[in-house]
C-alpha cells in the first residue's frame, strides 16, 4: 500500500512536470537563480510575517495597554509597564511557573530514563523488534486533547480502570485515592499521562543515537577487554548523549507550552495545583478577557522559552563538538 501510494504520487508529479507549457517555461528560463530563490522563498516568509510576526508585534503593542477584547467600545489607554509589573508580582503567576517547572522536570526525567532503557533493549534486535517498536510508537501520534479527555475517564476513582489496576497490584482499596482530585496526586497524574504518551518519542531518538555508534568502537573495546559496564559508561552513554539532549530539548519546549492534554484532564485543578502557565494564560486572555495583561504574560513566556532554549542549544553544540 505504502509503495503504491508513493508511485501514484510520483506519477502525478511526472505528469505535472511534462505538461509545463512552453510559454511559462520560456518566461521562467530567463530568470536568474537569485530571482528564483526569492520567488521560492518569499511565499513562506510572507505567510510567516502575516500569521506570526505581525500578530506578535500587535501583542507587544497590546501588552502596554489596558485593552480588553470583550469591550470593543471601551477606550484603549497606554499603561506603560504596569501589565508586566502586575504579572510578575502576582503570586499566582509564580505558582503557575512552579507547577510548569515541576511538570517539565519530572516528565523529562521519567521519559528519558524509560525511553533510553527501551531503546537500549530494542537495540538488542530481538525477533519481532520492528513490529513492537511500531506498537510502542502509537501513543505519541494521537491527539493530546482526545487522549487527555479519555484518561479523565480512566482516572475516575469509582468507575475508571486505573485505580482498579493499581488496586489489583497493591491491594489498596480502589476508591480510596483520587488521581485527579487529590492535591498531592494530581501533579503526578498529568506526569503519568504525558509519560505514557511521549516516552516513545524519547525512545525513538535514543534508538537513533544507539544505532549511530559504529560497531568497530565496541570491537576495539572488546579487544581491550573492557567490561560491558565500562563499555556502557564510556562508549554508549557519551556517544548517545547528543541525541538524548536533543530529545530533552524538544520535550522541554513542548511541555513548557503544554495546554491541551492537561486542560482536559484536570482543567488546572484541584484548586490551582496543575494550573500550568498556558492554562493561566488562557484564563487571563479568553475567560477574564484582560487582553493587555495576557499579552504581557505571553511575551514573558515567549522570552523565557526562547532564552532557555538558546542557552540549552549552546550546551548541546558544545557536547556535539566534543
Amino acid at each position, binding site marked *: *500500500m*505504502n509503495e503504491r501510494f508513493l508511485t501514484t*504520487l510520483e506519477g502525478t*508529479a511526472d505528469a*505535472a512536470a511534462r505538461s*509545463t507549457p512552453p510559454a511559462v*517555461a520560456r518566461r*521562467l*528560463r530567463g530568470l536568474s*537563480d537569485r530571482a*528564483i*530563490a526569492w520567488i*521560492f*522563498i518569499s*511565499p*513562506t516568509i510572507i*505567510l*510567516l510575517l502575516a*500569521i*506570526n510576526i505581525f*500578530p506578535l508585534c*500587535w501583542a507587544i503593542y*497590546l501588552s502596554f495597554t489596558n485593552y480588553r*477584547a470583550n469591550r470593543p467600545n471601551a477606550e484603549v489607554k497606554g499603561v506603560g509597564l504596569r501589565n508586566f509589573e502586575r504579572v510578575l508580582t502576582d503570586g499566582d503567576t509564580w505558582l503557575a511557573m512552579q507547577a510548569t517547572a515541576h511538570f517539565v522536570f519530572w516528565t523529562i526525567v521519567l521519559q528519558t530514563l524509560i525511553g533510553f532503557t*527501551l531503546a537500549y533493549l*530494542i537495540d*538488542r*534486535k*530481538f*525477533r519481532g523488534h520492528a513490529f*513492537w517498536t*511500531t*506498537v510502542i*510508537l502509537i501513543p505519541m501520534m494521537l*491527539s*493530546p*486533547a*482526545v487522549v487527555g479527555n*479519555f484518561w479523565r*475517564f*480512566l482516572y475516575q476513582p469509582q*468507575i475508571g480502570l486505573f485505580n482498579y489496576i493499581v488496586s489489583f497490584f497493591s491491594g489498596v482499596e480502589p476508591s480510596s485515592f483520587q488521581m485527579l482530585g487529590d492535591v498531592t496526586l494530581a501533579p503526578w497524574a498529568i506526569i503519568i499521562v504525558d509519560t505514557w504518551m511521549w516516552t516513545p*518519542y524519547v525512545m*525513538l531518538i535514543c534508538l*537513533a543515537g544507539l544505532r549511530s555508534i559504529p560497531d568497530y568502537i*565496541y570491537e576495539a573495546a*572488546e579487544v581491550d577487554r573492557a567490561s560491558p559496564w565500562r*563499555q556502557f559508561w564510556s562508549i554508549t552513554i557519551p556517544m548517545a548523549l547528543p*541525541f538524548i539532549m536533543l530529545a530533552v530539548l524538544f520535550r522541554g*519546549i513542548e511541555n513548557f*507550552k503544554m*495546554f*491541551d492534554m492537561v486542560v482536559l484532564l484536570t482543567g488546572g485543578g484541584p484548586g490551582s495545583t496543575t494550573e500550568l502557565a498556558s492554562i493561566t494564560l*488562557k484564563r487571563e*486572555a479568553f475567560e477574564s478577557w484582560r*487582553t493587555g495583561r495576557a499579552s504581557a504574560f*505571553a*511575551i514573558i513566556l*515567549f522570552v523565557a*522559552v526562547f532564552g532557555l532554549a538558546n542557552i540549552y542549544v549552546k550546551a548541546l553544540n558544545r557536547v556535539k563538538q566534543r
Partner: protein
Amino acid sequence: MSTTAHSVVSPGRLSKSIAGAVVIIYALVTMIPLAWILLTSLKSPPDSISYPPKVIFEPTAEGYCNLFTTRSRQTDEYIESLGPPQGICDEITRKRNMVIVGESNYWPRFMNSLIIGFGSTVLAVFFGTLAAYGFSRFRVPLADDLLFFILSTRMMPPIAVAIPIYLMYRELGLSDTAVGMILLYTAVNVSLAVWLLKGFIDEIPREYEEAAMIDGYSRMQAFFKVVLPQATTGIAATAIFCLIFAWNEYAFAVLLTSGEAQTAPPFIPTIIGEGGQDWPAVAAGTTIFLVPILVFTILLRKQLLRGITFGAVRK
C-alpha cells in the same frame, strides 16, 4: 569474530529474549488505555460507568448510534404511536424510551477536520517545497537566520499566538471559518515542512540537475522534472506529518472556532448524553478519530524519526 554473551555488538540469545520480553510487556501495558477506549465504545452507557468496571459485557452499537444522533425522551404512548423502528439505532434508542430527533454534529466536525487538515497540508507542503529548494540550492543571504526564524515560530505557546490571531481574525471576518483555520495551520506547518524538505532535497545530488541543465533544461524544468520526482518520498512523508498536526490540534481550534469550522478534537470531549457524559459515544468518537492516525503511523514508521525532530536526526 567471536563474541561473549554480554557483548553489545551481537547480543546473546538470553539477553535478547529478556530484552524482548520487557519491551513486549511495556508495549502491551501502554496499549491498555487504547484497548479500553475500543471496549468502552462497544458498551451500553450503564455498563460503561458500572462499578467496578466491566471487562466482560454484552457488546452493543449504542455508543456509535448515540455518537451520530441526538435523541429526546418521550412517553411510552408516544413511542408506541410511531411506526416500526427504522434500523438498529432506532431500535436501541426506543428501548431507552427515547426517539431520534436528528443527526448529531459529529459528522460535520469530522468533515471540518478533513477539510482543514487537507487544505492546510496542501498549502504548507507547496510553500515548504519551494522554500526548501530555495534554501537547499541557492545562496540565500542570511539563510541560517531565516531558517532559525522559521523554526522559532514553533516555540511560541499556542495560546500566546492565539491572542493576536483572535483579534486579527475578528477584524478580517475569519473567525470560525475554514479559511482562517487553513491559513493558521499552514503557517504553523510550513516551518516543519521547510526544515524536513530541506533535508530531503539536500540528499538529492546536485549533479542530477546540473546534468539536466547541460542537456538544455532550464532551472525551473530541472526543478520540476528532476528534483520533484526524486523528492516524492520526502514530500509524502512531510505531508503526512502536516496532516497529523492539523488533525490533532486542539488549542487554536478551541479558541478560534465555535461551530461552523470547529474540528473534531474540541468537539469530542463535549459529547454528552442525557444527564451525564455519554462515555460510549465519546469512546466511539475517539475510536473513529484515531483510526486514520494508526494507519498513518504504520505507513510512516520509517520516516517518523526525521519528522519528529524537524529533520535534525536522519538515522
